[in-house]
């Protein structure tokens, strides 16, 4: 019960193919952890607790992409059991780095990694959760920003829309007063097409953005491709830049395929 006598919303943290990092962000919110734990009823969070309850849940927080038959069924079940379902991180929102398999023959890839490929059951592609079930909100990032996660949880508890900007990293970069690594140093930077959320970390560390938060709301991919070519990048290298943690997000996917064709 909350102090006002209302029942606390039950929450489930569910994992699919991922590195665990996004749900770890919750445990990494050391200063806010007790406040968060105190305002929800943690019904299912295996990374943190051995007490696990079957649904239904008020809120499901889903990490990871769908890569196996079993998981394709499991996500349906999670959706059925959850009033609200939000996805966190690049794997859940775009398929993650493992979506690089989507351009390859997965049987061949399995053979590279495993000695007896016949025992491995995996789908040909790694896909975001939203390709399987309706998703109420997608929180981007590889990893997610823990302040944004707290904002998302707060908004869910208050029943309002989370305040998560969808503009580009460039806006954050300017706000921080960073010198533009692309214009001044000629470094290839994905900032113009990447959604804000990291705080423009890479330019502040003398490197170009590599797209952890996926495409911003209206990315001009053609223009950035042209800029990368001007900076001397080969089309193969440009294609690789677009194919990282959010490779399967359609804007990045399409731009990378266009580079491959030329």
């Amino acid at each position, binding site marked *: 019960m909350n102090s006002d006598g209302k029942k606390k919303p039950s929450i489930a943290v569910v994992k699919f*193919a991922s590195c665990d990092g996004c749900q770890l962000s919750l445990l990494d919110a050391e200063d806010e952890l007790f406040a968060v734990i105190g305002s929800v009823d943690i019904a299912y969070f*295996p*990374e943190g607790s051995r007490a696990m309850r079957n649904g239904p849940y008020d809120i499901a927080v889903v990490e990871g992409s769908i890569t196996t038959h079993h998981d394709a069924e499991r996500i349906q079940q999670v959706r059925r059991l959850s009033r609200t379902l939000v996805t966190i991180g690049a794997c859940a929102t775009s398929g993650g780095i493992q979506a690089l398999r989507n351009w390859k023959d997965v049987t061949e890839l399995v053979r590279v990694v495993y000695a007896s490929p016949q025992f491995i059951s995996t789908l040909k592609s790694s896909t975001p959760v939203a390709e399987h079930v309706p998703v109420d909100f997608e929180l981007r990032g590889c990893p997610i920003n823990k302040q944004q996660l707290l904002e998302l949880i707060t908004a869910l508890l208050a029943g309002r829309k989370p305040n998560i900007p969808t503009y580009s990293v460039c806006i954050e970069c300017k706000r921080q007063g960073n010198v533009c690594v692309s214009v001044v140093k000629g470094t290839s930077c994905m900032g113009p097409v990447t959604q804000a959320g990291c705080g423009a970390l890479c330019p502040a560390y003398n*490197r170009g953005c590599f797209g952890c938060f996926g495409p911003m709301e209206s990315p001009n991919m053609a223009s950035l491709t042209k800029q990368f070519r001007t900076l001397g990048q080969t089309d193969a290298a440009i294609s690789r830049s677009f194919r990282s943690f959010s490779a399967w997000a359609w804007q990045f996917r399409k731009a990378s395929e266009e580079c491959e064709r030329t």
Partner: protein
Amino acid sequence: MSGRTKTIRVDTLARVEGEGALQIKLLGDRVADVKFRIFEPPRLFEALLKGRHYTEAPDITARICGICPIAYQMSAVHAMERALGIRIDPAVRLLRRLFYCGEWIESHALHVYMLHAPDFLGYQDAFEMARDHREIVEQGLRLKKIGNSIVTLLGGREIHPISAAVGGFFKTPAKNDLRVLEEDLRWAIDASVSTVKLVAGFDFPDFEQDYEFVALTHPEEYPFNEGRLVSSRGLNIDAAEYEDHFVEQHVKHSNALHSIVRGRGSYLVGPLARFNLNFDRLPVVARQAAYEAHLTPPVTNPFRSIVVRAVELVFACAEALRVVEEYEPPAQPRVQAAARSGVGQAITEAPRGILYHRYALAENGLILAAKIVPPTSQNQKRIEDDLRDFAAQVASWPLDEATWKCEQAIRNYDPCISCATHFLRLKVERE
């Protein structure tokens, strides 16, 4: 109960990183079958690295594990530097030690306080534990936060930091930038010493095992990024020889690939192995804490790994402070070298044990082949061996208590299943 069949079953193993399950079949007091099953889906990293540029490997492999991304970055950069013949600046070497200290502190504090201590004190989780022991959990969280603050200071953020580069860092801090850590680290050393005292007072089952311990060793230092790979049974090799001595074995009954020492069998990596093989390289404050906890090598009870992890917390905090005090910035943040064809191997000590990377590079710097052996896949056979022996000890217990204890036996290894998945099968079938 004797003669009756019962099954210890855990469908979703909790307080570990990744997804695993456990099934032990008992016939009376005899253990008939042990399954430590991994259902974490494979993500095929080694295959996906083919055709990527060598500079991308640190950031891509970091995504194998959100708990120990620095370990992946460190093994990747060292393997690449070896392939390219790059010699790093001594100041960069020191900073990498600090970076690794941050990850060890964060990871060990998380495991000791949030994931493992609740088993010893009889709570489902650290949140429930906090109701009775708020100050203990808060101490753990503060330690963890200090580890994270080191990582954030050097790498921009705690998970998948962005500063590690082949040849050094993209940006290195000024001497004064590190000074802000000093006060916290002094507190953290004391807090870690009290952590050792706290966890040494837990009850440990009587369970000694005959392990082959495998860890890096360095002439002067407790190991992170450098050294020879040694074992308690006489192995002493360079990282380049790793694949001559360690093989993945296809175990018929378990359908899992297990890493073994060629010609011998399972082995143990991680805190217990490092402590037993490098005890005299620990700083005085860490050794003192160990002595006071009556902990001297060889420690062969895996349940005591929580105490060893706490001693390593003392080490990591003390080492971090040493680096902060001694550090002078390098002339350049990183050394760059032209791409060339070559092969490079590296082993570094992740919080959970040795992490092996090998890359073959083409002349243009693209990766031709990659091999990654994470610590949990190396410990996996050992975990099953432990369970086989330990389950017999708890066979006569009430099922729920026996189940919990067996879970605890797995958590002794702080297994990171997300990491290990490359090498584990999706399905384990019997008969």
